[in-house]
């Protein structure tokens, strides 16, 4: 075979002393679709940013297209033939499709004026190669995200890109649009352009990629021909597990639990939304913690958003406390007795400038109000009780919450929901970014709360937390709930095996 198009060897990179990459490797052949996978923090984006000149590498070599490549900025990488299609597209939505594609390389006519006629016909031709027939004079923003993404790719190709890097290209596309994108990727491949495809969706890799590189903890763990590997192997490598353990665990009995359940609190039947939740079913009883397990993008958070009324159901039904339940918005869901501790603490949780006291009581205000006024005395009392009970470390309950550590912020948010005494509390990554001590405390607070007869849905990327914390685990894949495990008897390997099983296999295993 000819020389590889791109070879990155022994790449090291550290950020203020913390290693992000340790002798990472990546090799892409010409005309190849190459997958790149790894958990969050595995170093995928750092590696890409080094290749495209956003970051400088500390050590190692990069060769591209037969020469040493040390790009000092993305522009240089682009003119050498590396185009990156980011999740956030860097196009100009208000200008026409043509302008977006020819920008910076407009065909000129006599006197240096832009030759729009040629530009339009060039653009039409580039797009028709991808099977797209657009009115190229209309503003780009009138077209769907998928089309805009394809236009971004078309722009890259028209700039003679030899390698197109796609970072999570399908995260905002629907199934039909994904199919069109895959068509374009195959098209690129045929014309000899290579694609580096970064995705959390393993199924997609098996559909379009020739080879796949797995990264973990800043290192390259393996590189496989896609035809010679399977999901088990990829997941085992991503998570750093022994593949034999996973496979054998998958074959053992899932074990039966004897959790002291109360009555059924929530039942969801095949619910789906427009937000990548296809068919999710689960039952939560009083007195139990139900975990949602799955890889990133499997629909865990989306299930929570559907239950909480943020995303509207397009199919299925829910029963909550014995009655049909379909909340229009969080206000309705909260009034019915739900709470949601959201995943993104900074953006969706805390109000940074408000005090610990105000943050803690925001969801509780309707109940703290008498004659239109907040009862300050009771407010202080409640806040002080929670600060003491949860061991929240704050100088003063009037201290701005932004000054607290992550773990203490999270405890305040947890207290915010506990104070409203919901029947069902959904916790999305409750211990992310929290130190070990606070983590254990938060976990025991949750268990204590459930023992009082409430239900909790626990979402976590950490398998250990799910396995140890949940009474049952509902496993999700690509927006479907595919299996259910019961404690005692769940081990991390069993959980991973369930996550790795394909839908069809799972329905058999989950007898």
């Amino acid at each position, binding site marked *: 075979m000819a020389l590889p198009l791109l070879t990155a060897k022994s790449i090291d990179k550290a950020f203020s002393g913390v290693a992000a990459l340790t002798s990472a490797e990546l090799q892409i052949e010409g005309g190849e679709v190459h997958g790149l996978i790894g958990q969050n923090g595995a170093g995928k984006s750092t590696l890409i940013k080094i290749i495209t000149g956003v970051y400088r590498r500390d050590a190692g070599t990069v060769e591209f297209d037969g020469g040493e490549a040390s790009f000092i900025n993305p522009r240089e990488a682009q003119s050498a033939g590396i185009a990156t299609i980011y999740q956030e597209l860097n196009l100009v939505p208000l200008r026409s499709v043509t302008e977006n594609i020819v920008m910076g390389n407009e065909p000129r006519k006599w006197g240096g004026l832009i030759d729009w006629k040629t530009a339009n016909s060039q653009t039409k031709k580039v797009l028709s190669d991808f099977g797209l027939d657009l009115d190229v004079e209309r503003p780009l923003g009138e077209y769907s995200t998928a089309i805009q993404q394809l236009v971004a790719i078309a722009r890259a190709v028209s700039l003679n890109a030899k390698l197109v890097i796609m970072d999570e290209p399908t995260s905002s596309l629907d199934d039909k649009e994904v199919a069109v994108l895959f068509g374009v990727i195959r098209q690129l491949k045929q014309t000899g352009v290579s694609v580096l495809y970064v995705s959390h969706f393993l199924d997609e890799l098996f559909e379009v990629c020739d080879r796949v590189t797995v990264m973990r903890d800043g290192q390259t763990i393996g590189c496989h021909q896609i035809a010679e590997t399977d999901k088990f192997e990829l997941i085992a490598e991503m998570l750093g597990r022994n593949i034999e353990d996973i496979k054998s665990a998958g074959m053992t009995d899932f074990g039966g639990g004897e959790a002291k359940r109360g009555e059924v609190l929530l039942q969801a039947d095949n619910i789906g939304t427009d937000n990548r939740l296809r068919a999710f079913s689960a039952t939560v009883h009083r007195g139990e913690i139900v975990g949602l397990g799955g890889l990133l993008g499997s629909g865990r958070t989306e299930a929570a958003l559907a239950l909480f009324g943020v995303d509207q159901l397009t199919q299925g039904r829910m029963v909550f406390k014995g009655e049909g339940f379909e909340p229009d918005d969080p*206000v309705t869901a909260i009034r019915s007795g739900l709470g949601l501790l959201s995943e993104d603490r900074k953006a*969706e949780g805390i*109000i940074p*400038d*408000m005090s610990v006291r105000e943050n803690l009581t*925001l969801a509780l205000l309707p109940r703290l109000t008498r004659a239109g*006024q907040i009862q300050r005395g009771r407010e202080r009392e409640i806040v002080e009780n929670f600060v003491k009970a949860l061991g929240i470390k704050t100088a003063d309950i009037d201290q701005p919450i932004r000054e607290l550590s992550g773990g203490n912020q999270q405890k305040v948010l947890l207290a915010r929901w506990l104070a409203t005494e919901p029947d069902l509390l959904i916790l999305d990554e409750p211990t992310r970014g929290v130190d070990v001590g606070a983590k254990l405390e938060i976990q025991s607070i949750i268990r204590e709360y459930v023992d009082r007869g409430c239900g909790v849905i626990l979402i976590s990327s950490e398998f250990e937390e799910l396995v140890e914390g949940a009474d049952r685990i509902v496993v999700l894949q690509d927006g479907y709930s595919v299996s259910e495990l019961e404690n005692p008897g769940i081990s991390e390997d069993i959980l991973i095996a369930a996550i790795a099983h394909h839908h069809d296999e799972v329905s058999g295993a989950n007898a």
Partner: protein
Amino acid sequence: MLDDSAFDLRKYLNNNGQSAGVWIALVALIIFGLLRYDNFGSAYNIVSFLNYNSMFILIAIGMCFVIMTGGIDLSVGSVAAFTSVCAAYLSPFGIEVALPGGVLAGAVIGGINAFVIIVMRVPPFIATLATMLGAKGGALVISGAQTISVDWSSNFTKFGMEKAFGILPWTIVATLVVFFIAWIVLERTPLGRSVLAIGGSEEASTLMGLKVNRAKAFVYIFSGACAGLAGVFLASSYGAGQPLEGIGWELSAIASVVVGGTLLTGGLGSIPATLAGALLLGLVFNILNFENGKGTISLSAYWQLVIRGGFLFVVILLQTRVIRKRQAVS
């Protein structure tokens, strides 16, 4: 060494936002005035100063609520002009009708702002820019671009020109009432907390079940009503509905709010500090008048704008520092 008291003061200001700064500046300016001018502390000067500035204080209080949600209301000046004409037309029926009428007219325009911003999802800057032009045009149309003389035979002008129980002018009393209500709403009610929470993070507020749209509707309607009341003051104090007044009032109001330490990005603010901001900007003008009166300088009234601009500049510099520091923390 530089770590002397001057730097401690700066640290103090950084830690407490600018609301501390505005009080210090206000007190300093008042002491300066008291020491330098004989009549500065006279009842006449104080009352006429407050009487004149009550309109701006009202508008600034309404604006403060809007800005705390992260929005802006550019329509207030035009709304005041419009409602001054409405109140003038209603003046024969007495203040009992003209005052609620003017406030209602302002609240209705605020309601239009709220509808366009919340339901039609138009950015506040654009939406209130449109109602600013609309209210201005409305005022000119219904008045025929003339000042509309009020009915002097009714009790309408007594409101703007006479004192309640012989102590304080009615305008000042009404402004104080609005001030205390606004203060209590912001500090003591769920609505006030929601306003600040929305400015802090609208997404988080929605997810924790706060009635975000209701709170946003409130701030625009309240701001419109405050501007409406200011328009009633205008007509009652000057004896005429004035369709050409109100130009630039929205900017003075924004300036008062900002000088009072309220962040333009929302989420942080104070009603007393907004009052202090409005008083401070008004005092600059008052003191220039005294200085001119002494004959030591002869500065034209235009200079007050330059000096107000200087104040604003300093405050915004300080705010930027606070925001940067905050970003560094989180």
